């Protein structure tokens, strides 16, 4: 297909606004911003047809740094603002920037409902497992027992797992990536942006100030091969540089060493297009340190989008022509006074 030749002047640079990003040095947000600009260029996105909507939190400053249309909303509500934008002008490409507190705590309700409706939005959840903007309280994704400013004796909240939540709500596109794995991140972002329907990406994002090294296991050279497994459609789950794999034992995943009679064919094969979300859910339950954590696209299926359905009903209703106020006012019983 060559219907949309990407014009040469669409470089990542042109998507930058005149505002200097103001995140802390070493913050994972910088990398995501860079990859997003690359993806916009790659997709040939028109700046005027692109809208970034965010909630509240460090990452929610994101729209200010892009020369697209942008809306910095209130805490937890970015998905609704974005839904309103998309329903009002479905031609726009609409992105949502949110965090673990924004999307899972104060905005948890909206996340569920946006996903189940399958509004055509690309949702980037920056998970740093901490409240950064308010300076260091535990978040709904902070591990049990984590000591933070508001949990000096250790958090007694059991965490939510964003992908399990998204899959539970039957998201049509679910993926995970990591701020420092720039190529993978770019690839996942591109696929998310191309998906029609709600795309949900959890990005492990380092908060260098309040929760540094929360994702050390997945980021550090010495550990990452053993602690992460990169998903590929129709391919077996192999990690640790090909030495280990994931096999299904009854309903549960188990780690096996390859060789000694264990072949790749015995392993769990990834199928991101499976309609039934159980496999994707099982993958989302694989967590460090018991398991390597899966990275990549967990699930990518097709389902009609909410915005298409809404506009479709309007088009159907208008098939016989648009409405006339004269008729509307005269629906039901009328009478005339001479």
């Amino acid at each position, binding site marked *: 297909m060559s219907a949309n030749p990407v014009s040469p002047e669409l470089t990542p640079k042109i998507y930058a606004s005149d505002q200097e990003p103001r995140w802390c040095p070493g913050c994972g947000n910088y990398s995501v911003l860079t990859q997003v600009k690359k993806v916009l260029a790659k997709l040939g996105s028109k700046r005027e047809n692109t809208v970034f909507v965010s909630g509240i939190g460090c990452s929610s400053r994101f729209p200010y740094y892009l020369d697209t249309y942008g809306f910095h909303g*209130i805490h937890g509500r970015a998905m609704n603002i974005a839904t309103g934008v998309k329903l009002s*002008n479905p031609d726009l490409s609409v992105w949502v920037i949110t965090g673990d507190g924004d999307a899972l705590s104060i905005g948890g309700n909206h996340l569920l*409902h946006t996903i189940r409706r399958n509004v055509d939005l690309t949702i980037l959840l920056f998970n740093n497992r901490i409240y950064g903007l308010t300076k260091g309280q535990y978040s709904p994704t902070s591990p049990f027992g984590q000591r933070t400013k508001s949990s000096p004796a250790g958090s007694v909240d059991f965490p939510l797992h964003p992908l399990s939540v998204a899959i539970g709500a039957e998201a049509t596109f679910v993926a995970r990536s990591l701020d420092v794995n720039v190529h993978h991140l770019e690839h996942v972002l591109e696929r998310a942006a191309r998906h029609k329907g709600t795309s949900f990406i959890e990005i492990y994002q380092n908060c260098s100030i309040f929760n540094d090294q929360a994702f050390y296991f997945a980021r550090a050279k010495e550990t990452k091969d053993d602690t992460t497994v990169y998903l590929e459609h129709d391919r077996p789950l192999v990690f640790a540089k090909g030495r280990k794999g994931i096999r299904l034992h009854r309903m549960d995943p188990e780690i096996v060493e390859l060789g000694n009679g264990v072949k790749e064919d015995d392993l769990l094969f990834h199928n991101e297009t499976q309609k039934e979300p159980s496999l994707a859910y099982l993958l989302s339950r694989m967590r460090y340190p018991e398991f390597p954590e899966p990275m990549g696209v967990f699930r990518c299926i097709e389902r009609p989008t909410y915005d298409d359905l809404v506009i479709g009903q309007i088009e159907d209703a208008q098939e*016989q022509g648009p*409405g006339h106020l004269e008729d509307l006012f005269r629906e039901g019983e009328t009478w005339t006074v001479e």
Partner: protein
Amino acid sequence: MVVSMEKNRTQTNPVEVVNREDVVVRMAGDSGDGIQLIGTQMTNTTSVFGNDISTLPDYPAEIRAPAGTLAGVSGFQLHFGSHRLHTPGDRINALVVLNPAALKVNLPDLEPGCLLVVNEDAFTEIGLSKAAYDENPLEDGSLDGYRVFRVPMDVLTAEACKDTGLKARAVSRCKNFFALGLVYWLFDRSPDTTLRWMDKKFRANPAVAAANSASLKAGYNFGETKELINVRFEVAPAKIAPGQYRRVNGNEAAAFGLIAAAQRAGKPLFYGSYPITPASEILQELSKQKRFDVRTFQAEDEIAAITSAIGASFTGVLAATGTSGPGVALKSEGIGLAVITELPLVIINVQRAGPSTGLPTKTEQGDLFQALWGRNSEAPICVLAAATPSDCFKMTLEACRIAMEFMTPVMLLSDSYLSNGVEPWRIPDVESLPRFQIKHPKPGDRFEPYLRDEKLVRPWALPGTKGFQHRIGGLEKRDVTGDVCQEPENHEHMCRTRRRKIDNIAATIPSLEVNGDESGDLLVLGWGSTYGAITAAVDRCRERGLGVSSAHLRYLDPLPSNTGDVLGRFERVLVPEINLGQLTTYIRAKFLVDAVGFNKVQGKPFMVSEIEHEIEEMLDGRTS
């Protein structure tokens, strides 16, 4: 086929015919009895006949309270007359009850000597005990002050339906139509309109159609042929301005107003809402009107409802949300967002009674303060209030006009009384409706997100427009550029500018009109749904020569420019409100006038006589 009842009239019963200018009739029974249905039918018939009407449905908050109990009573009051009516009426002139509970609940509202038609079949031991009656009121003399007619409605309905093949349970559901037939006879109204409606409504179910129409006719014939009831009322048609009419309640009128505004602005309408009594009907009505490019979004909660509307407004459609007071409480942070982003947004608050969940189906004017100030920090919005059910149409159009013309949220206050109340509405000529010329910056124009015009209004640049990419949001903005700005002077400048912008709306609204003398001893000042009761009370007092005038506020922020002037021309100001004195406080603070509140918070509207009495007290018999 419909047999016209008019043709085979056989009057055998000598009856007293009472001519009246207006009548208040209430029908009541269990909430499962279909009272609202017959109420609506009676309303249709009387309005088609040419009477002016005003109605008040009254149904329980629970969807299914236990049958036969006091909590389960559903009522429908219709006031119709040969002159202009302002309210559903204070006192009931005729009451038709289908069970003892309905009698007990409605007894306090009857005028002395009221006509009382009771379904005596329901006054059994069980029925009486469910209504907590120790004695049968039909037999203990407690109803001696009324003209009571006992009609065995269950038996007569069963008899009328015996050839329809319906089972006993289904037949018993027809007795509401028997009652309606009797009411038609009582007020000399033809059952034809209802028979025609039945024909259509029950086309798919001939047995039910037959049973219902047999019951209706049986009720009518019962009055006509039995010697039992010896009184009838006659109310001549009203002299109303010529034109085509329909009935409308406040919620329908608001929905029509939104659609009309979007059409006249050449825009799609976005309506984000979460179901809540008594506002849900607006969402339902709008969801039917897709051919007007109405995009309804039933959100997961109140906050999603308003924030989706804000997103829609940013994108350039006409955006609105509707709810009741508890919903406004949840939306208040969203309203603040629309204030600081200066986006057009219409918020309809159909007020209901009580803090918290309160009395969800009852009326109140308790949200004026919430509308004016119920947000964090300095967050001024425009506040309007509709005065009558059909006025909801006009004021919704106004809300949309102001929102788009001034790039601001506008809250329109309606209430349960207006949303349920039905009145005739003269269908407006579409061409006479205002046309809204909406300006959006075009490529080539100078554009800055917060560059203001002479009215202090910022531009509405739409996503999709090349070169005008900009970012807005909840953080304070530098004026003109719209960049995030924390500077103290800028913040004060923006707070004052947002306030002044709302004040500038005053130049585009009508001045406050006085009903009666332009100056004098006493002004009755109202807002919102008390219009009918206040106007009727003041008119009656003036007819009796009392020196009193009234004025009604439809614009509460900004107030009409001449408000202070009008108040200053009267020695005293009386402010009746269905709350504990919110407008009174506002007026006193704004104009330093010694306004006196007249307040009632019972979940019920004012009776005309209550206000009349209050006026008399204040004037102490002084005439003008």
